[in-house]
């Protein structure tokens, strides 16, 4: 769940991180009033969940309330990468002596949280990593232990910052890291952090991304920010396929059959179980397959729920076959899923024996499940066939004409 800059800054403010004066505005008149209140040069920034704002004309500077209103009017009508802004942030413009970069995120390889810090803020961090690696530090830390300021200090000192700047930046980075941990963020970034001409240091731009699954743990924060429970804030607006899958999942409280992401392949996936979705999705790709979707099933979805998801996936243009695969299941019943996918295929007008490339769900009630699959001629395998091998079989079967 991504946050707009103005929301990210409210989150930073709660962490005690110093910020420039700013006002979130929805109209040009509000922007003029905000600029009047700030009483000095301002920057007007589009509040849109997309990068490239500056390049697209979504960031402008103004020296008067009238100019601020004019820019706000233009920015409010300007789509950026197809997205309309929800408002503008009118912020005091400060003279910057030096810019820094700080981000906290997860390092999947190290399986730890990491602070990335640079004394070259304001530009693309990938570019710094590539061209100026000596200006970038990576400091890993454990998310299971209380965060200590010395970790933040190591991150800042790692690029040679000393003295008062080290102390001020340590406070900011420590606040950012604690926010990251306390609020289940997947990314907490300030770019740039600005050192002003008077020596003080403030956060000039911010980007926060919360783990979607954790959103319900932070309803207090979301309520405070005015984020509605229906808002997903993903990287792109959901497709109709994804919206319909969400409806299937939410229409029935029994189990999970959703969290679907659309891709443009020809193999529909009904996958899940304890990390099985990601593993199986990767296995299909590694075998040269082109998934039509990612999804997650588990927690023993009802027959009708599994059937409705199957129908939906089968109905997508370009889906030639579907693969039904899970890790070994204990709390999901093999026979219930088997009934659901067979029924879904038939109700969508397909022969399950042809449409299902492979069924690989071993586990509880598998004998009943396999009896159903056998009756309908669906190719299935048990736990003696690995998930990788099942994915490969699915890809091979899809190559045969559906």
């Amino acid at each position, binding site marked *: 769940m991504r946050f707009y800059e103005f929301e990210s800054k409210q989150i930073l403010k709660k962490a005690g991180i110093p910020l420039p004066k700013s006002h979130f505005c929805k109209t040009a008149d509000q922007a003029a009033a905000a600029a009047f209140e700030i009483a000095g040069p301002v920057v007007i920034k589009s509040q849109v969940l997309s990068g490239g704002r500056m390049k697209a004309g979504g960031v402008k500077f103004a020296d008067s309330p009238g100019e601020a209103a004019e820019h706000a009017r233009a920015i409010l009508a300007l789509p950026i990468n197809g997205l309309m802004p929800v408002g503008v942030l009118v912020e005091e413009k400060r003279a910057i002596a030096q810019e820094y970069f700080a981000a906290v995120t997860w390092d999947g390889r190290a399986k730890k949280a990491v602070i990335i810090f640079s004394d070259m803020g304001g530009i693309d961090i990938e570019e710094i990593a590539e061209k100026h690696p000596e200006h970038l530090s990576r400091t890993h830390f454990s998310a299971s232990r209380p965060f200590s300021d010395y970790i933040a200090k190591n991150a800042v000192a790692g690029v040679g910052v000393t003295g008062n700047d080290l102390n001020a930046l340590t406070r900011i980075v420590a606040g950012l890291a604690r926010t990251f941990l306390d609020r289940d963020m997947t990314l907490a970034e300030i770019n740039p952090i600005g050192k002003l001409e008077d020596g003080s240091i403030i956060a000039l731009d911010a980007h926060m991304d919360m783990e979607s699954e954790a959103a319900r743990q932070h309803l207090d924060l979301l309520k405070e920010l005015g984020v509605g429970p229906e808002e997903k804030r993903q990287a792109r607006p959901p497709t109709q396929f994804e919206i319909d899958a969400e409806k299937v999942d939410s229409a029935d409280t029994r189990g999970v059959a959703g969290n679907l992401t659309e891709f443009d392949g020809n193999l529909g996936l009904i996958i899940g179980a304890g990390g099985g979705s990601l593993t199986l999705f990767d296995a299909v790709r590694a075998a040269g397959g082109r998934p039509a979707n990612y999804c997650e099933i588990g927690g023993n979805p009802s*027959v*009708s729920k599994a059937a409705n998801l199957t129908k939906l996936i089968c109905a997508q243009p370009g889906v030639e076959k579907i693969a039904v695969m899970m890790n070994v299941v204990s709390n999901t019943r093999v026979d*219930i899923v088997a*009934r659901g996918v*067979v*029924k879904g295929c038939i109700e969508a007008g397909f022969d399950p024996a042809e449409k299902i490339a492979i069924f690989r769900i071993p586990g509880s009630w598998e004998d*009943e499940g396999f*009896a*159903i699959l056998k009756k*309908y001629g669906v190719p299935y395998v048990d736990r003696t066939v690995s998930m990788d091998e099942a994915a490969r079989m699915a890809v091979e079967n899809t190559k045969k004409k559906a």
Partner: protein
Amino acid sequence: MAMFIRVDIDPSVQQDPALGKRIAEVCPVDIFKVADNRLETVEANLDECTLCDLCTIAAPGKVTVVKLYR
């Protein structure tokens, strides 16, 4: 239309409304309903049968759950 499960109710159950009510209550997936004091199956829910046997335990010999795929 149910594809996997059929549930047969012995006609004698209809003479015992209390038994019919008990059968309807024990089923976790609403496969039974009582209408006009008669126990009936709900066609739309039949394939949701969990094969838990609670109905057959509640009314031994009076309800039969048939797996159509066997």
